[in-house]
């Protein structure tokens, strides 16, 4: 498969990936657009766009809050697709959707995936879709050139890690610790050991996510992984900023600092 993600990964070399996550429509689509621009200028490699869902069972309080805020403002999928088209007018940064299964089923798997690829998304991450339930979606995604990123977890067996590696088209997402998304998780020696094991067992590049909150975390986790995803921490920064406008600058600065540690 060739798309923006795979092309980028093929020429990555030793560079570590910085992947920020923003919930679409939080606090508004206008600002989601601004955050994506800020992230790109801060040196992010890819951007993950979260599709808000009414029952985000893999998410902790921050992403729950951002999703609810967006949905309360009546955010629609068609508006998120439009946002992506707007970003694509000036940017070629690889973009991924992070969405739960049900919106995909509601729209229709074929229609959702095709439209998502059409507007300029390069990959999908579906937190409640384990690899054994993914065959249909995988076929459609392959056809339209969308990468599928599957998650591995500290509880994944060796056999499952191999299954996931085989099904992945793009990169693997390693959940750092068993749990839901959320800032400020405690990483231990066992986190390092687990990432080290993945390094040996995975053929694909893999990034670490869930709980990454600082440059220190990013440095530690990329000792064995190929990059980090940062989500809940960014939502925290947005919530704590005095104005929406200042939140854009804060996001850019935060990501720049991480970028420095990673490059």
């Amino acid at each position, binding site marked *: 498969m060739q798309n923006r993600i795979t092309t980028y990964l093929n020429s990555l070399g030793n560079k570590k990936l910085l992947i920020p996550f923003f919930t679409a429509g939080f606090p508004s689509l206008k600002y989601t657009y601004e955050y994506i621009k800020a992230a790109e200028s801060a040196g992010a490699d890819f951007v993950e766009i979260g599709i808000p869902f009414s*029952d985000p069972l893999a998410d902790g309080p921050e992403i729950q809050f951002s999703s609810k805020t967006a949905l309360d403002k009546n955010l629609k999928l068609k508006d998120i697709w439009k946002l992506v088209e707007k970003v694509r007018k000036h940017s070629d940064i690889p973009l991924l959707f992070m969405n739960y299964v*049900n919106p995909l089923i509601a*729209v229709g798997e074929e229609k959702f995936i095709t439209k998502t690829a059409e507007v300029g998304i390069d990959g999908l991450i579906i937190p409640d879709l*384990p690899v054994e339930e993914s065959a249909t979606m995988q076929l459609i995604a392959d056809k339209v050139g969308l990468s599928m990123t599957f998650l591995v977890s500290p509880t994944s067996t060796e056999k499952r890690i191999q299954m996931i590696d085989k099904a992945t088209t793009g990169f693997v997402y390693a*959940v750092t610790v*068993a749990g*839901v998304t959320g800032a400020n998780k405690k990483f231990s020696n066992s986190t390092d050991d687990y990432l080290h094991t993945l390094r040996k067992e995975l053929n694909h590049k893999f990034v670490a996510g869930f709980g990454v909150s600082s440059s220190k975390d990013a440095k530690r986790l990329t000792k064995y992984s190929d990059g980090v995803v940062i989500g809940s921490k960014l939502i925290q920064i947005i919530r704590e900023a005095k104005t929406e406008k200042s939140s854009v600058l804060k996001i850019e600065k935060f990501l720049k600092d991480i970028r420095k540690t990673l490059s």
Partner: protein
Amino acid sequence: MANKRPDKKGRFGEYGGRYVPETVIYALDELTACYQSARKDTKFQKEFNGFLKDFVGRPSPFYFAERFTKHLGGPQIYFKREDCNHTGAHKINNTVGQILLAKRMNKKRIIAETGAGQHGLATATVCARFGFKCIIYMGEEDVVRQRANVEKIRLLGAEVVPVLSGSKTLEDATSEALRDWVTNIKNTFYIIGSVVGPHPYPMIVKDFQSVIGKETKKESQKRFGNAPDVLVAAVGGGSNAIGMFDAFIDNPKVKLIGVEAAGLGLNTKMHAAPLTKGKPGVLHGSYSYLVYDEDGQVMLPHSISAGLDYPGIGPEHSFLKDSKRVKYHSVTDKQALNAFRLVSKLEGIIPALETSHALAYVIKAKKEFRKNQHIVICFSGRGDKDMDIILQSDK
């Protein structure tokens, strides 16, 4: 006799499966393996049946509702009295089974979700009996409207965690319990209260509840020399209905009827009737009928009965609907309340609001039955817990 569903992947036809974060798969595999061995282990089965007899109080009575029968002037109506079980509902059949699995797996901590509080109560009860730490997730709205059960759960030594997200009812309590489970996956056993969730739960809960149908089969043979003509049960997640129906699924002469909550009416958005008004979708780990909008956002359900106030349904019910083996109907809050009052006065038995939905359907559809037919209603629980709601509805 018992059917072969689900298949190895946990599918009932196309429904079911495992739509959960990767972290949970390990625990589901572990549970599946443990259950497969327990299922064949006569010692386990003996222990389970022993607790059903001496702790739960089974077999539950099979009661001829003479005055209700006369009042309707139609078919012969029997109640399968799950309200007589310890803790007052069918829920305990399943929690006894699952706590024995938790013990077998050497887990230390139990979590559960609850709507009406009956499953929370049944879980707290077995946790007290077996000495487990127990945490119950309950929507804040339900904490208020099912106050009596909350107090009982606390008395039994369990912690009740009010859930503040979404509609503050069963849907959110279930999401929160799942989040706890993902976080504490190694030491925690999640006792799911209905035939919902990822495989193997719909299968395990069905098996533990199937005692309802088995007893009904035996007793109806004794009383009227035949299987019942019609079985009626309320469906929220659907465990009392599946438990009742399973022994009769392969006997096409027995009509099976499930009753959903129509809330304020099916033409409003305030209902909890996924089989009547929903489409297949994914919530809480399985593919099944669900009420959601064009973007896949799950709609807030409504029912006066906290136990039926859920936007989804167990996957086997979706299969039984499509295959037309079970017919699903619905009744409104108001019809259920009327049935609640009527049956209390006629039979001296106060039904749960969930059960009242099944009763209300029989009242509504009485003309469709013949006089010589035998109808068995799954009397899933007692109504003591609903007194606050009833008093409120009087105002």
